[in-house]
C-alpha cells in the first residue's frame, strides 16, 4: 500500500517548509536545510524535490514580491497543503511504529557488542 509516498529528501524539504512557516522559498529552504542538517544541497536537487512535491499536491506555491536581490524577479513561496500534512504525519507514524517494534534486546546486544569488539566501533555513531 502506497498511500503517501515521500522520498527521504522530499520529506526533509517538506519538513523544512513547515519550519519556515510563511517564509519558505528556494534560497531560504536551502539555507535552512544546510544549517540544520549540515549537508550540502544543490539548487537543482532541491528544485526537483519542490516540483515533485507540488505535483503530488503536498505543497502549493504563490508568487511573492519582486526584490532587488533577485534582480527584480518575484520570489516563489511554498506552503504545506492539508494533503501534505497528512503525508508527513503518515510518514512519521509509520516510522514511529517501526521504531517501537524494534525489540529491546537488539539495542542491548549492540551496546554489549560495543564493549566487546573493536570491530563494532563504528556503531558508536548510531547511538
Amino acid at each position, binding site marked *: 500500500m502506497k498511500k503517501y509516498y515521500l522520498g527521504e529528501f522530499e520529506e526533509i524539504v517538506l519538513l523544512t517548509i513547515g519550519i519556515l512557516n510563511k517564509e519558505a522559498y*528556494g534560497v531560504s529552504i536551502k539555507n535552512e536545510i544546510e544549517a540544520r542538517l549540515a549537508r550540502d544541497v544543490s*539548487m537543482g536537487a532541491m*528544485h*526537483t524535490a519542490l516540483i515533485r512535491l507540488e505535483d503530488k499536491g503536498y505543497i502549493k506555491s504563490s508568487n511573492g514580491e519582486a526584490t532587488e536581490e533577485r534582480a527584480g524577479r*518575484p520570489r516563489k513561496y511554498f506552503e504545506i497543503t492539508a494533503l501534505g500534512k497528512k503525508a508527513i504525519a503518515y510518514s512519521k507514524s509509520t516510522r514511529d511504529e517501526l521504531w517501537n517494534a524494534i525489540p529491546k534486546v537488539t539495542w542491548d546486544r549492540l551496546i554489549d557488542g560495543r564493549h566487546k569488539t573493536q570491530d563494532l566501533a563504528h556503531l558508536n555513531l548510531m547511538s
Partner: protein
Amino acid sequence: MKQESPKTANRLLTRFLRSDLAEEVRGDLEEKFLLDLKTKSVFKAKLIYWYQVINYIRPFAIRKSRLSYLNNYDMFQSYFKIGWRNLLHNKGFSFINVFGLAIGMTACVLIMLYVVDEMSYDKHHKDGNRIYRIASEVKSEKFVAASAPIAEGLKKDFPEVEQSTRLLRFPGTDKMVVKDEATQKQFFEMNGFYVDSTFLQVLTYDLIFGDDKTALNDPNSMLLSEEVAAKFFGNENPVDHVMKITLPFGDFNYTVKGVFRTNKKSHIPANLLLSMNNSDVGGWVKNQHNWATNNLFHTYVKLKIATDPIYFESKLTPFLERNGGQDLKAAGFSKSLFIQPLPDIYLHSDYGFEVTPNGSIKYLYIFFSIAVFLLLIACINFMNLSTARSERRAKEVGLRKVIGAEKHALISQFLTESILMSVLALLLAFLLIQLAIPIFNQLINKQLSLIQLPNVYFWLVGLTIITGLLAGLYPAFYLSSFKPVTVLKGKLVNTFSGVMIRKGLVVFQFTISIVLILGAILIGDQMRFLANTDLGFNKNQKIVLPIQTAEANKNAEALKAALLANSKVIAATHASSYPGIENINDMLFYAEGKSINETVDIIMCNAGNDYIETLDIELLQGRGFSKEFMGDSAAVVLNEAAIKQLGYAAASAVGKNIYFEWQGKKVTMNIIGVVKNYHFQSLHQEVKPMALSVSPFFGLPMSYLILDTNTNDYADLIALLEKTWKKINSGSPFAYSFLEKDFQKSYEKEELTLTLIRYFTLIAIVIACLGLFGLASFTAEQRVKEIGIRKVLGSSVSQIVMLLSKDFLKLVVISFIIASPIGYYVMKQWLQGFAYHVNVSWWIFALAGTSALLIALLTIGFQSVRAAFANPVNSLKSE
C-alpha cells in the same frame, strides 16, 4: 561596483532550462549568488553559481525539444506535398535523380546478392568453427588432400581430435552412371564422392529421408541429393532401394540410405555420397597404408572445444614425421601438413585437387567495392544535383526562414524530400531488380533470388533510408544555412566551397568510372590474349567423348575404329587426360647420374599412340609412340620443361633414361621424344614438366576419346557420333564435350568478372553521365543571361560551347590523372594471377582517357550547344 552573476552560465541556463521555470530559478540563483558574495570571494561565488547551474541539468528542468510542441503531422504533410510538387515541376531533374539512384541501388543489390551468396558457403555445419581440413604441402606445392592413413592416425594420436573423416574424389570418375533397375532410368551424375562412415559425424547434412546416425554404417551405402532422388523417385522415400553405379571398372550395387537437402551451399557440391567401404574402390582404399604418397583423401577433423588450432597445426608435421618417416624417405621427398578452417575453404582455398573449383575472396572484394562505389556514385549524383539546384530554391528557403521556419524544420523538409525521392527510387529499383535478376542469374550462372536472403527487404528499406539521408544530408544542411537577407536580396549564394565540393564529387565519380573503364579494357585485353595465344596444340574442332563405363572401356578400340571410318573424323586417340582438365597424376623422376633426393615432379598423362598427332603438338626431337615399337611400354615423351628441369638438353635427350622408385624398386624409362611446351593447363600457370606415356604401369584409366574433326555442321556430326556410340555401347549413355570449351572453363572466373565489370562499368558511366548532364544543364540555365550578353556582343556558338564545356572537361582530365595510378596498381595486382599475361600498356590508358572524355563531351555538349544556339532575346527580355 555591483557584481553580476556569470553571463555564460546564465546563457547556458536559458539554453536548456524549461521556460516556465526560468524566472524562479534565475531568481533563486541570483539571490543565492548575492548571499554568497557577502561571505565568500567573488571567484568562489561565481564558482558556486556555475556549480548550481550545472546541477540544474536534470530531466525535470530540461526543456523539451521544440518540435514536440508543433503539429508534426501537418508539417510533414506539407513537406511531402511540396516535395511532390517539386518533383513534378522538374520532371527531367527528378527523373535523372530517381533513375540514377534506382540504377545504383539495383546494381548494388544484385552484386550484394552475389556476394552474400558466395559468403554463405559452409556456414551451416554444426560446430563448423571447430572443423578443419588437413592439407599437404610437397615441394612448395599445396594440395588440399592428404594420404589415406592420416585421418585415422590423427584420431589415434591426438586426444583433441573429436572425430576425423575422409572424402575421396576418385580420379577418372567425375561422371558416374546411376541406374535404377526397376524403372530402367539411368543418368550421368557429376560429383559423386566416396566418404567414410564418420562423414556425417563431422559435416552436417540435413537428411529428408534416412537417419544421419546410421546412414553410412553399412558397406555399399549411398546418400542421394534431393535433386538426384527426385529424378529417380519423385517425392517417394527411396531408402533401402538398391541402385547400380557404373564405373570404368564395372557395375556396382549400392543401397540408398538417405536423401540430403542441398539448400545449404558447401564447397562439397555432392550429388552422391557413396560409402568408402565398398566393393569397387573399397579394396584399393583399404590397401592404402602409405603416409607419403597418394594424397587424394580430403581429410576433415573436428577438434574438441577450446583446442588451439594453431598449436594443433604445429604438431601435425612432427606427427607425420613420426608415423610416416619411413614412407617419406622411400618416396624421396618431404611433406608438411597444414589446416584450413571449414568456413573459409570456399573463398580462401585455391590449391591443388580442390573438391571442385572454389570461389575467390579477391573477386569478392572487387565486386563488393564495385557495389559500394556504384551506390556512392548514385548518391553523389543526388547530392550534386540537389545542391546545384539549390539556388532555385534559395528564395523559398529565405521566405520560409522569414516566416519563422527554424533550421531544423528546413533540414527535415529537405530530408523528407530526399527520402521521398529515394523511396521512389527504391520502388523503381524493386521493379528493375525483378527484371534484372533472371538476366543476372544467366550471367553469373547461379540461381539467386531476393527470397534467398531472408532479411533483404529490411535491408533494402534500410539502404533506402540511408541513401536518402546520405544523399539529402549535404543539401539539407547547405540549403538551410542560407541567410535569408542575402538570399532575398538576390545575391548569388553559390559559395566557393559549395562549388569546390560539387566539383570534387564530380571528380570522384569520374575517377571511379575511369578506373572501371581501365579494368574492363585490361580484362578484355587479357581475355583476348588468352584466347589467341598459341597454346602449343590445336584446340579447335576437338570433340571429347568420356569413356567411363566398363562397357565403353571394353569397346574403346572398336569405337575408335568405327568413328575413324567417318570422313569428318580426321584423327582419334585415347587418353587419361587432355588439355584444360585437371590432371593430378604425377611421379617423381630423376635423371641419369642423380639420386632419389634430386627428383623432378613430372605430371603424367597416359596417351594413346596418336595423341601427339591428334592434338597437333609439335614434336621437337625423336618420335612419338607407335604400334611398331614394342618397347614403348617403358618409353616416355617429355616436354621441354621436364627436359630442362632434369638437366638434359633438348637436342641430346632422346635415348637417355630417367628413373623413378616404386615400392623400393627402381624403374627405368627411356626418353623417345621431346615435345615443345604446350599449355596442358590454363595460362594461369607456367607450363610444368610433363610426360606422355603409353606404359600400363601407371594404370591411369584411358577415360577419354579425343577426336579431331573437320565439319561445319556439329549437330549433324554429333548425331552421327551418337549413332555409332549406341551401336557399340548400347548400355552406356552418350556424352560429349568440346575441348576448346573445357579449356575455356579455367577462365570462368575471369570471364564472369569481365562480363560483370563491363555491365557495371556501363552502369557507372550512365549514372555519372546522368549527373554530369544534370549539372551541365543547370550551369547552362544559370548562365543563360551571360550567354545572351556574350552572343549580343559577338561571341560565336563554338566559343560559347567551349566556355560551357571547358570546366567540366577539366574535371574529367583531373579524374583521369587520379584514376591512372589507381587503375595501374589494380591492373597489376589482377595480372599477377596469370603466369602468362599482357602488359599494362599506354594505349589502355589512352583509350580509357579518350572514351571518358568523349562520353563527357557528348553529355555536356548537347546542353552546351542548346544553350549556345538559344536566341539571346529570349533570355534577356525579362528582368
